[in-house]
């Protein structure tokens, strides 16, 4: 029985983002609560309808309890699952199954972080383990740099190809009013940027911003009565093969190869059916690895695949159409923003709308390429 999923039983009925960028004077829980309220309103529901709460806050490992108290809710189920920035994709899996089973009726998945205004650095309670820490890797950048070094070695991937990823993300961000990083960005500028942990420069790294996001899920038949078009969850799968980068079996293949394959199978679609792709781009190498592992190009071809603006506005495959973690926002855990953007594309209300989106994929990454989770959303026509 393992591996089954209630395809299309639950839908995203409401969504919201709030405060992407710099929000001095706001706490993480205030940002999260504001996004949560907006998502509930977007779904046409009332606060008291929420009976399942799925929460991540950067500074509170028990953030679900804090949000329940803040909202004055007594949920049937509260989840503070932490698998890194992919946690929200796992939340979607849990919430969908609970909704389909009738365990809960309305799930709120919510996240907020003031890491930019609060500290100005990536806010994470995670660090290198005792077998890695003495060598002083930059956590987590050096882990991704090691993966990139291996990809360069095995497949001839280049820094210019990594730079293509960042330039494409900026291209999308430039026409997204919500995106934090805007303005021209060239491959040469990225190649000349200060090296952080080779082969990754500071321009290969995601932003440090504030921001919040929230989605409301309910059973699809109920979501059809909500004001916005329902966005059914066709599949959601997670995979973990390692925690520390030194224990990753093959630095050029992530567990997205497993989470993606299982999510496709649940959804009854393949990469060729996906109209728009949202990938957790904490670093430029991520986009290349995930395009390969999720089947959009063969293993090793990711660098060549992104050349010539293929994933940029006007390219053959729209990827990270909000600007991604590289240019839209990265408050510390980006996964929920990828889901929101995928759902907006299905609804047709994204800032950079792609025409006729029937299937959208949102992929989350956590730890040091450790936790991989894939959500496939569709329009009601796919049911």
């Amino acid at each position, binding site marked *: 029985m393992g591996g089954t999923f209630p395809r299309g039983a639950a839908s995203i009925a409401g969504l919201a983002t709030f405060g992407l960028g710099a929000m001095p004077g706001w706490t993480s829980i205030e940002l999260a609560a504001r996004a949560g309220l907006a998502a509930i309103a977007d779904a046409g529901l009332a606060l008291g309808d929420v009976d399942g709460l799925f929460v991540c806050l950067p500074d509170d490992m028990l953030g679900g309890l804090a949000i329940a108290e803040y909202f004055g809710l007594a949920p049937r189920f509260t989840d503070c699952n932490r698998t890194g920035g992919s946690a929200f994709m796992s939340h979607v899996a849990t919430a969908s199954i609970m909704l389909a089973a009738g365990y809960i009726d309305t799930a709120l998945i919510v996240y907020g972080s003031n890491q930019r205004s609060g500290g100005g650095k990536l806010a994470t309670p995670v660090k290198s*383990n*005792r*077998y*890695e820490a*003495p*060598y*002083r*890797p*930059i956590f987590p950048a*050096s882990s991704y*740099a*090691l*993966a990139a*070094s*291996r990809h360069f*070695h095995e497949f001839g991937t280049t820094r210019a190809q990594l730079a293509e990823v960042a330039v494409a993300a900026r291209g999308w961000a430039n026409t997204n009013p919500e995106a934090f990083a805007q303005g021209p960005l060239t491959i040469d500028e990225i190649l000349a940027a*200060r*090296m*952080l*942990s*080779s*082969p*990754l420069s500071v321009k290969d790294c995601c932003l440090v911003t504030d921001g919040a996001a929230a989605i409301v899920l309910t059973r699809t038949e109920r979501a059809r009565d909500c004001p916005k078009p329902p966005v059914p969850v066709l599949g959601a799968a997670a995979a973990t093969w390692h925690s*520390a*980068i*030194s*224990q990753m079996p093959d*630095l050029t293949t992530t567990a997205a190869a497993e989470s993606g394959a299982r999510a496709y199978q649940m959804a009854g679609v393949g990469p060729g059916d996906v109209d728009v792709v949202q990938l957790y781009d904490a670093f430029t190498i991520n986009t290349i690895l995930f395009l390969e592992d999720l089947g959009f190009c063969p293993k090793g071809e990711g660098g060549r695949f992104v050349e010539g603006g293929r994933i940029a506005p006007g390219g053959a495959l729209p990827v990270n159409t909000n600007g991604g973690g590289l240019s839209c926002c990265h408050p510390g855990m980006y996964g929920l923003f990828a889901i929101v953007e995928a759902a907006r594309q299905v609804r047709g209300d994204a800032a950079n709308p792609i025409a006729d989106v029937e299937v959208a994929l949102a992929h989350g990454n956590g730890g040091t390429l450790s936790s991989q989770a894939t959500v496939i959303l569709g329009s009601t026509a796919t049911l």
Partner: protein
Amino acid sequence: MSTGPGEVWRQALDEGRLLLQRAQSSGTVIFPPRLMEPGTGDTDLEWIEASGMGTVYAATVIARKPPEPASNVVLVDLDEHVRLMSRIDGIAAEEVRIGMRVRARVLTEGDEPLLVFEAV
């Protein structure tokens, strides 16, 4: 058992010895130290002394705050087929190459034993 396997490993390193575990039935060599063979759960582990020889699998050069020079961080595949994070000493950080053959050396840094490697 007086300590966990992690402490057994650390105390050996303190004496300049690099230990690994081997599952006796499968022959699989294991690192970091564990209570069982990952995947199978077999607990028939024995300690073996590593050859100390390995090959650089992945490498990064990290910019440090001046005046500290840049330093390298690598993943080394030991000849016993385990992978670990370390550092290559004795050459400039930029000279470290994937595929380079390296030999283990234990030194003391900040009162703790530290496993590093040198190019051979």
